[in-house]
């Protein structure tokens, strides 16, 4: 195990009646890093975050933050939320409507009995940082969504917690604001140096914010790694589908130097890179995962154009590849439904994984 891990989650299980929300989740985060918990709704990522925050009590496993065990089912340790020294930003902002902006932001200091004068100074400084200096005395309900988000962020950071949790924190903002907040968050984190865990179902957000990704599915960790490796080499068919790749069924023909040759049901052959792990045996079922942007028009497999939708710089095409649907995103070519086309997929753009 990595000794400098700042957060260590080990074999966490959370059961709701017959439903297993967390089914043995383990991961680690280094100090000052950002981890994104990514996955479709219901995969357990929010439950995971709430267990770290102490808002849910897991049924088994262990959580360690900054060298301190905050939860351990075996030893019966379960620190209440308020003793875990965290900051949290919720999707609904959870800005208290009966308090002013300054009171909201100052709350963690007030609870910790920081002297009044110091409280005021720190709140003022924090509000400057998040760009709400002029709003301190406003009622929190008078603010726009983006501003409330900043209040929630300032409140989560004011007491300088070493770990800050974000629960779909940007999902309620419109696209432009989200983009801007994402950048600001990165800058803030560089400046304040906190460790962050970021729950999201939006892959762009996860890639943009995190140094490390944990993709979850049905209460389990599906894959884990840096954004680039998760993006370029999807480890499982689930990850490939979740990231929006084409996933084609095929049969293994053979492999050579990490490159596999597979046969699609229609008899066409396709070459791709073998994913990490074991080499599938000849004749076994495999899946070929191809990013839409990597399905290019040009000499190769014959297909029929079914539909297209114009996206501006690119156009998304729905192709019929011998009865199988294939999607491509390419610069607009102006094809019409029914056109016969040919598509080419480079072996290095295609990841071959064992099926099932």
């Amino acid at each position, binding site marked *: 195990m990595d000794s400098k891990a700042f957060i260590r989650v080990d074999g966490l299980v959370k059961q709701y009646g017959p439903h297993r929300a967390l089914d043995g989740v383990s991961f680690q985060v280094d100090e000052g890093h950002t981890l994104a918990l990514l996955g479709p709704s219901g995969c357990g990522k929010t439950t995971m975050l709430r267990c770290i925050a102490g808002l849910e009590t897991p049924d088994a496993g262990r959580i360690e933050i900054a060298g301190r065990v905050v939860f351990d089912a075996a030893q019966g340790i379960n620190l*209440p939320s*308020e003793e875990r020294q965290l900051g949290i930003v919720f999707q609904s902002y959870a800005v208290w409507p009966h308090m002013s902006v300054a009171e909201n932001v100052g709350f963690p200091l007030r*609870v910790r009995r920081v002297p009044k004068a110091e409280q005021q100074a720190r709140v003022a400084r924090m509000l400057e940082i998040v760009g709400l200096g002029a709003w301190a005395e406003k009622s929190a309900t008078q603010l726009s969504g983006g501003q409330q988000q900043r209040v929630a962020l300032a409140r989560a950071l004011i007491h300088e917690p070493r770990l800050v949790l974000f629960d779909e924190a940007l999902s309620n903002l419109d696209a432009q604001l989200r983009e801007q907040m994402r950048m600001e968050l990165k800058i803030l984190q560089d400046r304040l140096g906190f460790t962050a865990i970021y729950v999201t179902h939006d892959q762009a957000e996860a890639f943009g914010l995190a140094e490390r990704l944990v993709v979850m599915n049905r209460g389990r960790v599906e894959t884990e790694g840096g954004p680039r490796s998760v993006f370029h080499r999807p480890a499982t068919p689930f990850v490939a589908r979740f990231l929006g790749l084409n996933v084609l069924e095929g049969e293994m023909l053979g492999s050579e130097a990490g490159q596999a040759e597979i046969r699609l049901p229609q008899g066409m052959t396709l070459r791709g890179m073998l994913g990490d792990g074991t080499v599938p045996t000849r004749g076994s079922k495999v899946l070929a995962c191809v990013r839409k942007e990597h399905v290019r028009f040009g000499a190769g497999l014959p297909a029929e154009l079914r539909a297209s939708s114009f996206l501006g710089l690119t156009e998304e095409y729905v192709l019929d590849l011998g009865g199988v649907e294939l999607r491509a995103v390419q610069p607009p070519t102006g094809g019409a439904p029914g056109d016969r086309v040919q598509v080419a997929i480079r072996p290095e753009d295609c990841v071959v994984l064992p099926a099932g």
Partner: protein
Amino acid sequence: MSATGIGRGVAPARVEAPPAPRRFLGLQRALPAAGVIAGLLLVAGPLLAMLVRSLLVWDGEAARLSLANFTRVLSEPRVWEAVGNTALCGAGATLLSCALGFTLAWLVARTDMPGRRWLELGNLIPFFLSPYVGAISWIYLFAPGSGLLQQFAMRHLGLDLGFINIYSLGGVIWVLTLFYTPYVYLFVMSPLKQMDAALEDAARVHGAGFWYTLRHVSIPLVSPALLSGALVVFITSAGLFDVPLALALPSNIPTMPTEIFAAVQYPADFGRAAAFGMMVLGVTILLTMAQRRYLARRRYEVVTGKGYRPRLLPLGRGGRIAALTLEAVYIGGAVLLPMMALVMVSLSRLWTGSFDISRASLANFTYVLFSFRLTQQAILNSLTLAVTGATIGVALAVLQAYYLNRGTPSRRGLADALLSLPLGIPGIILGLGFLILAIRTPLYSTLTIVLIAYVARFFPFATRTISAMFLAINPELEQSARASGASWAQSMRWVLLPLLKPAVIAAWLMLFVIFIRELGATILLYAQGTETISVALVLLADRSAGYVAALAVVQLVLLLLAFTLFRLTRTTVTQS
């Protein structure tokens, strides 16, 4: 090209005159407006009559305008004593029912208290019972010397509870608290249930403990609802005639409602009563306006819709025992013990303060139901009033709710304020207004005037309930019906009314319950032959405990029947 083709095809249609622009209001606007106007007249009539009467003084045969009635009332020490006592009762009942109502709602909504599904319902039962009967039952339980509870405590626990006197302000406050707790409970229940749990979780994660979070986050967030509930409880409990009649009057403790009642008994002094009534009304209206202003500033959007449901707090063993004990005290004190006492007394031929099962008999019931003219007539009158009154009230409420939610926006605010006025007016005061209005007309001493007073005093309850349902119905649902070719009446009949049905049924049952037990207005308006169950209970109170208890049980059965139907329709009372 195609346009001319079509034009040619339908050319004859063009000859027809275009439909005349509708100058007339049309049903769509006339009907709801009529409902609002009827409501306004029902409120304004008695109040204006009372205002005028309070300013009139008779010199022999000629009346003249004067403030003499007011100066006279204000100079009487007994009036000030009555006002002080009533304020004390109202404040005491408000504080206690806020504490009890909030705690019970919190236990049900936010903890893992065992049996909370049933208790959630059980806590509401007193809402449907009669406070007058409750007060009588508590006399059976705690009458000086002969109360069932005192005897029980003496015999089995060796405790002498003789120092507690039920005929006191304390007794009034106790019974009022039992009956008004469900009001607060209903007011705070939905914010407690629907509050975004992240608001509390954020406090916990950022370092606040459980009690700190409760005090600085949870309670402040519920406080607008709690304060609304508190004001409603204060105004209505202070104005309630039933409980002081049973518990304060026998000790000659003056209270506002009983003083107004006394003023119109023979020899009646209507000027004095009207002046007193006007002052009470002034205070009520001021309080209501203050509440409206306060709420307009502080209505939090606690419900964000994007949050998630609160977790249930594990109480632990000690907490569970404490919670269940509180529930037992409340439901026991408000429902079970009074019912038990009533049944015991009603089954005893002669009530002496102890129940002997071997001598139990149904004689009281036989007499009350089959032989006694007064009680038979009273039951018939109450049922007639409740059924017709609830029907008229609900019809009026549907029209008003339509106006308040779909009518001209600029006029809604004022209409809403005026139409909710009766919510705060004590029944005895509105009754007084109607008495003054009707005393020289053929309506006097008819069942009709009682019916009118009932509808006038209580239609806002129905309007509120139905209005709340309107908020959940998107106007586009009716607009789609209109766009599909339905007339306004058709869109009402096939789209809006079916959607409103749950609220309409709830409102009808609520009015039915209120009318079956109403006393404050009826006591001033009844005459021989138009007695209701509640009036008969008062009239018989001095004669026979057995008849009173038997009749009270009959009323109780009617009320519980309505409560059961209310539950079966699976709707919740919305009052805020």
